[in-house]
């Protein structure tokens, strides 16, 4: 009896061990909800199906933002982190400073057929801290200008190519808003000006169009960067002051103002593309499109961030060579199949996935894809990035300036001093 039992146990062990040798499990954490979550689930299913004998991704979705990054940090510190996780490139500096992330070498990338040259330079630069690579970009998400084609056509703002025309430059954009107003659209622009994060994205785009350096050599808004910041802020606050955009709008309301046809323009992230696509498919939305933010200053530039893949530095739990190979294979496969991910509105970070015919036929993504070439990423600092002190400062200074509660000059000086005071 005992012999039999032992025999069964041994057999079981052999089977488990044999299975493990043939098939690697990759534990995966992400923070992707909504339209992103649905699409990532599909990608993971496809990956598992095409690697049925070799690799299996075991995915868990966690709460976005500070909770995710706190959990990543605490779990990696005790060796209980996942094998691979999604990460915002803008949040990379803090992750590196806390020792949460493992370095990825060029050789690692080469082993699965990836190279730094497969990505836009600014994008890949944001994946590095002090010259070392800590993440592999997966997408770029930026803010874009959504437009109501019907209202713009009525105001004569649609060009021969079917795209909006005459919006570049502060004066032209203002003139366009006036035309729409005269055409009966009382407040033609909808922005989420009730919160700092959305204002930061527009501000940083306009700031980047003047080649502003938000943080240089440990100094925030140093020298004439302050003036550039004030100019960028003034453009946005003038929209509110002159009655083109309502003040203090909440996030869902800012989308509703656009989708209900009350506003002709809406500036928001590409992640709302599925919202518009779905509404339009149901016949509940006018003809619409999305283009890059107009150029108000010297040259085009748009704020962008990236979802990327990072490997946690699990303390006391060295990753086996087989496991690492599997993780890199997952990352490479996701990148090479990321054209589908673009249906969530994002731009694939992997150049080839953005340059194929399938992507070029994808609307409205193809209309704003060129912003990838001039994208500006958040300053590389532990104080910057999503849900960071810089975002908080945007809520405390930039947001009230946009809504006319304080002057742009005073706001930018306050923001500079506040952030400078937080430098250790």
């Amino acid at each position: 009896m005992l012999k039999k039992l032992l025999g069964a146990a041994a057999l079981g062990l052999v089977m488990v061990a044999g299975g493990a040798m043939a098939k690697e499990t990759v534990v995966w954490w992400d923070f992707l909800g909504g339209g992103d979550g649905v699409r990532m689930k599909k990608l993971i299913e496809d990956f598992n199906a095409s690697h049925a004998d070799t690799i299996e991704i075991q995915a868990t979705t966690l709460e976005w933002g500070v909770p995710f990054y706190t959990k990543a940090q605490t779990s990696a510190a005790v060796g209980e982190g996942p094998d691979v996780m999604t990460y915002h490139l803008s949040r990379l500096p803090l992750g590196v400073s806390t020792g949460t992330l493992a370095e990825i070498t060029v050789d690692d990338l080469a082993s699965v057929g990836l190279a730094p040259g497969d990505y836009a330079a600014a994008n890949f630069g944001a994946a590095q801290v002090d010259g070392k690579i800590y993440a592999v970009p997966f997408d770029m998400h930026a803010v874009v200008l959504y437009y109501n084609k019907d209202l713009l056509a009525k105001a004569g703002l649609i060009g021969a190519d079917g795209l909006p025309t005459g919006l570049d430059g502060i004066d032209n954009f203002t003139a366009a808003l006036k035309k729409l107003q005269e055409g009966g659209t009382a407040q033609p622009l909808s922005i989420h000006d009730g919160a700092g994060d959305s204002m930061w994205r527009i501000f940083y785009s306009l700031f980047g169009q003047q080649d502003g350096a938000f943080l240089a050599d440990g100094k925030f808004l140093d020298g004439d960067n302050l003036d550039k910041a004030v100019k960028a802020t003034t453009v946005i606050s003038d929209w509110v002051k002159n009655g083109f955009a309502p003040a203090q709008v909440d996030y869902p309301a800012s989308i509703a103002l656009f989708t209900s046809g009350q506003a002709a323009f809406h500036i928001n992230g590409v992640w709302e593309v599925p919202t518009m696509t779905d509404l339009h498919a149901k016949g509940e939305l006018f003809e619409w499109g999305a283009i890059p933010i107009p150029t108000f200053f010297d040259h085009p530039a748009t704020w962008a961030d990236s979802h990327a893949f990072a490997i946690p530095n699990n303390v006391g739990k060295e990753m086996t060579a087989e496991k690492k190979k599997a993780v890199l294979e997952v990352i490479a496969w996701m990148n090479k199949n990321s054209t589908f991910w673009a249906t969530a509105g994002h731009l694939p970070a992997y150049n080839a996935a953005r340059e194929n015919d399938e992507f070029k036929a994808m609307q409205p993504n193809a209309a704003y894809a060129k912003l990838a070439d001039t994208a500006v990423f958040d300053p590389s600092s532990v104080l910057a990035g999503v849900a960071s002190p810089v975002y908080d400062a945007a809520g405390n200074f930039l947001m009230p300036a946009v809504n006319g509660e304080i002057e742009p000059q005073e706001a930018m000086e306050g923001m500079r001093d506040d952030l400078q005071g937080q430098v250790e």
Partner: protein
Amino acid sequence: MRRYDRSEMVTALVLLTPFVAIYGLLFVYPLLKMVMLSFTKSPLIGEGDWVGFANYIKLFKDRLFSVAVWNTLYFVLLSVIPSTILGLLIALGVNRLKGWTQSAVLAAFFLPYILPVSVVYRIWGWMLDAQFGILQFPIEAIFGERVPVFRTLPLFMPAVAFITIWWLVGFNVLLYIAGLRNISAEIYEAAELDGATRLQTFRRITWPLVWPITVLVATIQLILQLKIFDQLYLFGQGGRTDSVLSLVWLVYRDAFQKNQGGYGATIAVVLFALIVGVSVLQYQALRARGEK
């Protein structure tokens, strides 16, 4: 003095040990670690250098700390006393009802209490939304314009306190109803026979007899509201958070967002001392009055 025999001692030990052990492990030990952490410059995870009282000195110079203390106390003021009084008033009303109407009305007042804070946030966020909120119609009729309530600094705390009272008052009502039902009907009958007015009955019978409940409700509310975080954070996020944050929010920001575990612990120690001090004081003060 009575002496305990051996078997009683053993029973007591057996019954008490698990609690004391768990209490020590999950409360006392982390508390001591937190106090020690507050004397170091630690990140959220891992060891840090001993810095003596540097964190405490930094704390008392920190403008945000004084804002957070003031906001926390202001919120306590706006929420604790009103929700206690309102709880009593509603309970008195509900207590007069009979049968199914009483159950229905009680359920109506208690229903918000079972909602999670995220739902409360969504409901009131939409009702007061400056563009589409249904409450903006009366607001526009009275004030002549729409008011973005959660983005108007002087209105922020009162509005969130009002919502908190709406959300949590049901629990106070329940406690008061239990207290009111404990008062024997005979006392009221005797008072009625003696020709006491309603006001006299309330002042001389109801109020003194529900006083222990009032002390309980006020103390529970006080401790709860000193730890205020969720509602303020949800309604305030993205806005002028430096002006509306509370002490727990400041702990969250420094420890979790900015990875400054030592400094976060320092704020937590001060908050802990504040809660212990204020609640002991309040409990003593209220109890003393009740015994008079």
